[in-house]
């Protein structure tokens, strides 16, 4: 189908995705607002901050780049920092791609550009439950575009009103809280729970490593731990020798 939007089933999945993202709105709004404020507090002019928000939809990489921009670091340093900060998305992409191979490069480019932490976890939770459901692209566009719109609205408010919004309110904590319910279902299995615990503890120990590398090391350690526990528990279930 060339214009999927004309297919009612596609549209239905799209709006379902948008609705599935909606409960996270306080978290996304708070996060976007904080990022918007941070951009102008760094000293970016309002037009440049708007340009950055609308083009570089990057969250944590944006925040990591701000002090470098303020210090007039060369563009390649900023690019390398953003690459390092975004490394977890490579793991996300590796996990998602087997469900998305049927779509065109153009559509995958758009989905990749719009994807974030939320859309990744929501997507993986849904395919874990339902397998390769129909119109996955539509649903994912719904989720990611809702995320994009909420983020941009909040970020623009932060940019324009930055001078009046104190950073001491701790608003970004709402964004952290929004992620908690997404972790809990995965912790029902021993493997998932031990993976999550390992990832969290390693990330905590490695907190403050440059380029958010502690986060990446934590994720990898968690995946390894979860796989080890999973191999052990499934060999126990099968009654064979481990």
């Amino acid at each position, binding site marked *: 189908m060339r214009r999927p939007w004309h297919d009612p089933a596609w549209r239905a999945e799209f709006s379902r995705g948008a609705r599935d993202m909606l409960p996270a709105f306080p978290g996304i709004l708070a996060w976007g607002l904080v990022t918007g404020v941070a951009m102008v507090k760094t000293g970016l002019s309002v037009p440049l901050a708007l340009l950055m928000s609308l083009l570089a939809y990057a969250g944590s990489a944006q925040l990591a780049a701000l002090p470098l921009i303020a210090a007039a670091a060369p563009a390649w340093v900023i690019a390398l920092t953003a690459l390092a900060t975004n490394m977890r998305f490579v793991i996300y992409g590796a996990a998602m791609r087997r469900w998305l191979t049927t779509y065109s490069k153009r559509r995958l480019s758009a989905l990749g550009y719009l994807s974030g932490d939320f859309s990744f976890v929501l997507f993986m939770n849904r395919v874990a439950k339902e397998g390769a459901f129909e119109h996955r692209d539509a649903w994912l566009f719904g989720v990611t575009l809702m995320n994009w719109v909420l983020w941009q609205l909040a970020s623009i408010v932060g940019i324009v009103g930055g001078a009046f919004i104190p950073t001491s309110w701790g608003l970004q904590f709402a964004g952290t809280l929004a992620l908690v319910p997404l972790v809990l279902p995965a912790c029902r299995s021993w493997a998932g729970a031990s993976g999550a615990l390992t990832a969290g503890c390693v990330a905590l120990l490695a907190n403050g490593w440059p380029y958010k590398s502690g986060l990446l090391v934590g994720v990898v350690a968690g*995946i390894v731990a979860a796989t080890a526990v999973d191999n052990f528990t499934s060999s126990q279930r099968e009654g064979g020798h481990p």
Partner: protein
Amino acid sequence: MNQMATRDVVLAILSLVVATFVTRAGMLLVGERLRLSRHVEAALRFAPACALTALVLPEVLSPSGVLDVSLGNARWPATLVATTFLLWRPSMLGGIAIGMATYVAIRLWLA
């Protein structure tokens, strides 16, 4: 900031865009050329839970970069309350509301 040329900032923004796109869309675009083994595919099932905890735990337990489990860091009791609520009723909105309410209450109480 005034001393900083607009051209340099635009260049910085563009490099941010490229780096972000490469990491987020790259894996989706390599397509058939890259084959992941069955074991790697199976291991990646655990990526969401691991990524989220690795994001959340440092934010909650060491918001300033140093481990802080005193009441001066209102984040961890607030997350504990929100998690307890979420185990009983899985509502993202409810979790944020109760967590933020606890967070604000503790900070006002200590202030």
